């Protein structure tokens, strides 16, 4: 009997401490969801009667920018319970929670003279508070799209923490005509396809334009002398100048260094193609690779210290990294297939490339040392990736096959999601994404 009582007491003592936990409950969550965030973007409040249409247009551009990233989903205005009629009034969070809008963007616009002024605020609906401070932009009425893009950039940054990329331009080749006789000319446009402006005519073949780091100049290859040569064009004045015109050679695939003072490019002499660099101001050139194989498509790292390029010295096209002034190269591509057109991300963490394997073309990304290779697209012919200013989106060329084949620009998120075409007036190829505009 005593033993039994003792036993029960012992069990009791043993159990009680285990039961008497008073610290907070701790759990760990490792799995979440990935889904577009619902955001409500009502028309901007018009401060004058003339501003009503502008308020609607700007809201539409902001909505298109945000939903175009694939990270946001717009809550349709037909679902709104309360309206935003006063920019300074308090927000009825319950009304927005009810329609499951997790973020709310409100704004006010005033058009006066040739100027437009936009104010906006971003709200985190479920936390019931404003996200960051309100901001204001002023600009010429003609540039209202740029202001809308700047607002969208700010909203995007506050919610995702990423830098924006909407207020940027893309230079590309606009194509027309049959496949055997393509007419090509240089064009520049807003990243979403608006405001297209042509920089050359179609008399000579032009290829692969590339923006400088601050977006003031474009390097490209042209056949206007009969032979491919590299040119630099000033975007503001649309004036161009040939850079490399040595007789008996062909030059192509030029790219700016991040400081904009040096250009790296490929030179074909006889049967050999190698990589050279040139100081634009002085014209002095230096040879960076010295191999009987084809070395081409060089691209600088964002810190200007290294160059990634493609070479077929191993028998097939592969990617190599070398110091910016030439030197020993290290191969970084090892998969099954051929790798080309490498481009370093502006964040410096990834290299995008074109891969050919089993008769298909892919756009892919890999780390700077070649690890974690991921393919993002697959089709008959994808090539020539270019990075958005925040290093999250890649734009590239996709061609279809056959007589009626044409080129279209496409963009894709680096996760491989949100593959979508970019609308251009005619066919488009060889895009180069410029920087965020100041």
């Amino acid at each position, binding site marked *: 009997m005593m033993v039994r009582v003792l036993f029960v007491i012992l*069990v009791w003592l043993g*159990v*009680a401490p*285990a*039961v*008497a*936990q*008073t*610290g*907070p*409950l*701790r*759990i*760990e*969550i*490792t*799995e*979440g*969801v*990935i*889904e*577009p*965030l619902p955001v409500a973007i009502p028309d901007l409040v018009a401060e004058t009667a003339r501003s009503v249409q502008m308020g609607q247009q700007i809201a539409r551009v902001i909505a298109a920018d945000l939903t175009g990233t*694939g*990270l*946001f989903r717009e809550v349709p205005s037909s679902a709104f319970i309360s309206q935003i009629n006063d920019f300074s009034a308090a927000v009825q969070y319950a009304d927005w929670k009810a329609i*499951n809008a*997790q973020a709310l963007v409100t704004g006010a616009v005033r058009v006066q003279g040739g100027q437009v002024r936009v104010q906006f605020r971003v709200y*985190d609906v*479920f*936390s*019931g508070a404003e*996200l960051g401070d309100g901001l204001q932009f002023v600009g010429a009425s003609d540039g209202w799209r740029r202001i809308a893009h700047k607002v969208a950039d700010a909203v995007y940054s506050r*919610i*995702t*923490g*990423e830098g924006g990329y909407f207020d940027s331009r893309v230079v590309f080749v606009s194509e027309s005509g049959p496949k055997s006789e393509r007419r090509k000319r240089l064009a520049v446009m807003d990243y979403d396809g608006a405001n297209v402006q042509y920089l050359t005519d179609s008399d000579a073949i032009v290829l692969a334009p590339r923006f400088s780091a601050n977006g003031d100049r474009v390097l490209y290859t042209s056949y206007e002398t009969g032979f491919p040569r590299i040119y630099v064009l000033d975007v503001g004045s649309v004036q161009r100048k040939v850079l490399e015109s040595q007789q008996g050679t062909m030059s192509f695939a030029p790219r700016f260094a991040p400081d904009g003072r040096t250009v790296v490019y490929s030179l074909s002499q006889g049967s050999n193609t190698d990589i050279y660099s040139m100081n634009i101001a002085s014209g002095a050139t230096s040879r960076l690779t010295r191999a009987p194989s084809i070395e081409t498509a060089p691209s600088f790292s964002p810190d200007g210290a290294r160059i990634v390029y493609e070479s077929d010295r191993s028998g097939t096209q592969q990617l190599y990294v070398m110091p910016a002034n030439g030197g020993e190269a290290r191969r970084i591509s090892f998969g099954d297939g051929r790798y080309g057109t490498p481009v370093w991300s502006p964040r410096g*963490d990834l290299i995008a490339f074109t891969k050919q394997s089993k008769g298909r073309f*892919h756009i*892919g990304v890999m780390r700077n040392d070649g690890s974690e290779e*991921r*393919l*993002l*697209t*697959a*089709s008959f012919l994808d090539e020539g990736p270019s990075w958005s200013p925040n290093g*999250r989106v890649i734009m590239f060329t996709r061609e279809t096959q056959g007589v009626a084949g044409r080129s279209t620009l496409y963009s*894709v998120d680096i*996760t*491989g*999601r949100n*593959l979508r075409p970019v609308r251009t007036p005619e066919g488009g190829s060889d895009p180069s994404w410029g920087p965020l505009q100041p």
Partner: protein
Amino acid sequence: MNTGLIISGIGHASLIGWVLFGGAFQSEPLPFEVTEVSMISSDAFEALLTTGPQPDTVTEVVLPAAPTVDLDPVATSQPDQTIATDAPQVSPEPVSEIVPAKSPSPVPPVPEGIDTAPVALQPQDFATLVPDVGARPIPRPSERVAPLAVAPPPPEALPDPVERDQVTQQDEAETPAQEQETTAPQEAATEIVTEAEEPSGALRSSLRPPSRRPAPPTRTVETPDPPAAAATQAVVNDALREALGGTAPDVPLGPPLSAGEKDALRVAVSVCWNVGSLSSEALLTTVTVGFDMSRKGRPVVSTMRMISSSGGSAAGAKQAYETARRAIIRCTGQNGYQLPIEKYDQWKQIEITFNPERMRIK
């Protein structure tokens, strides 16, 4: 009458009778199945498979490419030459003297004037009874990625983590029902599928489908009760808890929360934890959020704070914290989190660690 006549008559009659009716007494041999295998062309083989009913699954099942059967043209015109199958490998029986010169290899011999050359049947000629499993099943691409795959919802349903059917106000109802729209969890895949990966099911070639259709995949993602997935662990824990005498209600602090209940809370919050809009910086950051809970299972927003963070920068931590906070608040739902009230002291203060490491790889 003459005895002999009678005997003879009986004998004759029985003989005639046996001849006429004797067959009726014989029992038929037990019926058994004979599978006759005949040579069919590859097209007919493919047609055979596609006419069967397809199983109702979410993933695509790729039908097998019909193996090209290299048939000796002469052999097909002689169906009586078919060899009954009990073994896939059949050694060719030489019909004429000339054939033994050829080695009985699986490759059908080139006809060289031998009009009855048998064909060595390749193993693939017969219906593959073993499913060919692909390297890795890849789900169909979907806009939403979640731990549990969800089939596409009905078109009129608004997206919501909780599935609700449309409830309209009934005038005669005694208890007025709350008006609700049809909601269903959004379609989801378990991982991001890029264009470079083609969706494929686990099977490359399938068995003849069974006559009974398999059950459709479950739809509900959030349940207040412990989900079945954690059932085994929960059962074990429950058993242990009871063994420790945890059912005694007069213990003031209450028994510890079972793993099932903790899991329920974990799942409930994770459904709203949307990492899709996190920057790459924030995806490197693990944050711990602490807050108090009211008795009704609703988090007290004013007590929410970031307790710690690791990895990533300060900006990334801020982003990650805000997303975590949003997740906790959003999934509170109408009735708060479903936690047992008798164990309230166990969960009146909660710390949740959000670790996006596994979400990065998706």
